[in-house]
């Protein structure tokens, strides 16, 4: 500071950086809001299809995710290449779905339980067989609100 004091009068005034933290904080808050911390490692290759008639999932806490697809390279030796189901962060069987749904619902406020949505993230190449089995299991578990995850596509 003293250095500047000496030169005062001669040199051009320094640009004030006092508002820099504010700008950075603004950016920071933006990213904090849009961030969803990656809570589970994806062990399947899931490339969702494209669609146009999409509904946005509003409340993240009311959504549970079921992934369906081929295991990624790392797990192919162990789990093969046929489509599998991932619940949370582990490979699962169809029979595990009701328990998974139930566990998620326990963590949700009782009033909001009917609004729980299951998001099915299914790879484009998967055949309907396993998807149908999952759907049947969801119906048996009385989890009827389902959202097939998709990317926004071109309107025709």
């Amino acid at each position, binding site marked *: 500071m003293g250095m500047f004091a000496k030169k005062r009068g001669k040199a051009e005034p320094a640009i004030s950086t006092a508002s820099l933290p504010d700008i950075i904080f603004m950016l*920071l808050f933006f990213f904090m809001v849009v961030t969803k911390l990656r809570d589970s490692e994806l062990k399947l290759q899931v490339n969702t299809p494209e669609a146009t008639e999409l509904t946005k999932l509003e409340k993240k806490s009311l959504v549970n995710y079921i992934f369906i697809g081929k295991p990624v390279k790392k797990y192919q030796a162990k789990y093969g290449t046929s489509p599998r189901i991932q619940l949370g962060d582990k490979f699962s069987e169809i029979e595990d779905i009701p328990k998974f749904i139930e566990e998620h619902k326990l963590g949700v406020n009782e009033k909001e339980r009917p609004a729980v949505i299951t*998001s099915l993230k299914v790879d484009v190449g998967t*055949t*309907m067989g396993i998807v149908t089995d999952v759907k049947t299991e969801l119906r048996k578990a009385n989890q009827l609100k389902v959202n*097939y995850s998709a990317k926004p596509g071109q309107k025709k």
Partner: protein
Amino acid sequence: MARKTRGAPEINAGSMADIAFLLLIFFLVTTTISEDKGVLVKLPPWSDEPPPEMKLNERNVFSVLVNANNQLLVRKQPLDIDNLREDAKNFIMNPGNDPMMAEQPTKAIISLKNDRGTEFKTYIQVYNELKAAYNELRDEESRIRHGKGFDNITKEQQKEIRAAIPLVISEAEPTDLANE
């Protein structure tokens, strides 16, 4: 320290930016901007008994079959997926009062059946087209009734139009001809 004792000393805020940057970079790295969108579907409740046989007038049923080769059979005729939306709209509204198409939009039923070997991509495309047909019809109806798009009218008005053009897509148990 020997300072001129006038005014409270300023707090150096220069490092604040660094701290904020650090946090910012952390969130930048961990961010996956969530694109959580999808086709919303309501499944029918499960019952162990087979559903009761319903006698439906054939003219009110728009049957869509998808086989394991991802080909469409719509009302017993092969159809390209690009034409599905127009055909469905025509069927539901029946502007020409065709005796082979739906009596009224409220009576129209779309019956969707696929094979266990059908690709998920095709299934979603078909579902999307059918949903799009309904959404377009609702939008058109809203423009006729209120002069505004379906998204811009009140909740009450949306409810009325939904009741006038109800979305009924019935899904049958899939076939297993492909031995998937």
